[in-house]
């Protein structure tokens, strides 16, 4: 079983739809949860991050974490064609490893989202 599971899609929606992207994970020690967006032929860029459980909103985007269910979600309201990209969830532990200050990120496989005009 993978540490982080994410449906690869593609997920196709019309412009204006509400989009829900999800990841499940198995390691209850994860404390930091991130969503990266990756456009075609580009590197991932951080979209949102949350610490522990709860919701975080940024414009049309809402990140939600349910640690009891080991489930995280990203909601996109009023989706736009420019939102078409691959969305990767990522998570990390709270403790710094080995005193180096490095935190390993564990990524989902990514969900490809297509928003049609």
């Amino acid at each position, binding site marked *: 079983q993978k540490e*982080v599971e*994410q449906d*690869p899609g593609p997920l196709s929606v019309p412009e204006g739809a509400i989009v829900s992207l999800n990841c499940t994970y198995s390691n209850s020690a994860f*404390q*930091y949860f991130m969503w*990266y967006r990756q456009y075609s*032929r*580009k*590197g*991932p*860029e*951080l979209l949102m*991050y949350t*610490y522990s459980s709860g919701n975080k909103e940024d414009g049309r985007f809402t990140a939600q974490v349910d640690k009891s269910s080991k489930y995280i979600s990203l909601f996109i309201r009023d989706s736009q064609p420019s939102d078409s990209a691959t969305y*990767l969830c*990522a998570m*990390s532990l*709270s*403790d*710094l490893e*080995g005193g*180096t*200050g*490095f*935190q*390993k*990120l564990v*990524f*989902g*496989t*990514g969900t490809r989202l297509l928003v049609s005009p």
Partner: protein
Amino acid sequence: DVKVTQSSRYLVKRTGEKVFLECVQDMDHENMFWYRQDPGLGLRLIYFSYDVKMKEKGDIPEGYSVSREKKERFSLILESASTNQTSMYLCASSFPPTTNYNEQFFGPGTRLTVL
């Protein structure tokens, strides 16, 4: 803006060749990372470095080595390229976390094909 650049966008090499992938960041970040990205497998960490001349193995270091002679530059080396190393290679950098989290900034990636 943070900028992470990678030396090539596309690269085609033959089996057995020695391959160098270069990454440069301009934000004075201490940490640098090399990942590979494959369909259905996501991003997997190959190596990382938290300081000049320091390196640590990631999840899949076999067949790879790295070099960090200067703070801004992190090189990934395939000593003898094989077809199963055909992949998208992504470099990233970050500051050491002052809290328990710090953002990783990614380069545009190098798509390597080994024939």
